[in-house]
């Protein structure tokens, strides 16, 4: 290769490698802030700040959803299968919110460790299938991820 072109090639490689390294370091330094939510285990371990707006994400514990009879208040628990965080929320839940499904609640932790949520989002996984296929899977004793139940 022509020496001038070779030199330009090195400059291009230099630009790409060093800008990647710089951005990589910034992302590494900010890794805690890039996470959209805290898993329940970190909340229980006291890593989430009290009284400040945070998000907690996990699975809605089966059988934990309790709806108030005279208001829109809902109580449920979020788990990452290591710890559980109780959540209270007043408002309309997204259609996909359900027990055994992923959800992200944003709000503030009170002193008792209850998350008083102002917003609840449903998180869905990467599995897509027609209802009949899901039914057939369930009949043969598997959940929608193909894991035996």
């Amino acid at each position, binding site marked *: 290769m022509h020496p001038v*072109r070779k030199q330009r090639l090195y400059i291009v490689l230099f630009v790409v490698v060093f800008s990647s390294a710089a951005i*990589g370091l910034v992302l590494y330094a900010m890794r805690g802030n890039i*996470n*959209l939510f805290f898993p329940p285990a970190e909340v229980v371990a006291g890593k989430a700040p009290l009284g400040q707006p945070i998000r907690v994400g996990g699975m809605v514990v089966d059988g934990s959803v309790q709806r108030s009879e005279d208001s829109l208040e809902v109580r449920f628990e979020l788990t990452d299968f290591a710890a559980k965080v109780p959540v209270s929320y007043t408002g309309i839940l997204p259609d996909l*919110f359900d027990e055994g*499904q992923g959800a992200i609640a944003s709000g503030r932790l009170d002193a008792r460790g209850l998350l008083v949520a102002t917003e609840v989002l*449903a998180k869905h996984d990467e*599995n*897509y299938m*027609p209802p009949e296929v899901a039914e057939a899977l369930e009949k043969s004793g598997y959940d929608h991820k193909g894991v035996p139940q």
Partner: protein
Amino acid sequence: MWSFFHKLGSPPWLYGIAGSILRYLLPVTVIALVVGAVWGLLFTAPDFRQGNSYRIIYIHVPAAVVALAGYYVMAAAGAVSLIWRMKMADVAMKAAAPIGAALTFVALFTGSVWGKPTWGTWWVWDARITSMLVLLFLYLGVVALYEAFDNKEAASKACAVLSLVGMVNIPIIYKSVDWWYSLHQPASIKFTGESTIDSSMLYPLLLMITAFYCLFACAMLMNMRAELLEREAKTGWVRKLAAEGAH
């Protein structure tokens, strides 16, 4: 081999071959898009959890996939134009930028409209969505930077450097859902192992992804043809074309 590269550097040859490719590729692309969209919208079953809102996947995923791949095309053209000072690579880089911006916008918009009925929100600042927004600004930045310079050569250098620096964002977008806790779910189509989307839904999706790749190629060739005419307006072959009134 080298004669091919020499031809690539020849504007009239490139203009002609792009026209011949478009004559076949454009109709095929349009047919594939229509077939894929109708298949996905009307002939697939709804998802067992999301119902019919999941049908947005047939435009959201292809637009996002091709917007990411298109960035590599733009950055590669930028590198070639920087190192070899090849004019046609510069034409290719300038042609790719607005298409990438349009596809990134489509991915963001359809994602937002899909997020409302499934997640319960139009927008959330999670790693995947934010890095995709950065991609849109990178594409728009290249488009704007070209307009900002009067000197074409300086514009081409600045845009090439910007697109090369921005390349670091692409693996971040790909891996954002694995590296950080995000609202966005991981990929359903897997290159290794079994995809987590039922095959009846996978086939129309693969058709749409292929069609979007072809659409990117078509739009890019069309942009290059227009750009070539403008840059070569004073040369004999363009004057001949214009005098003939040929298309």
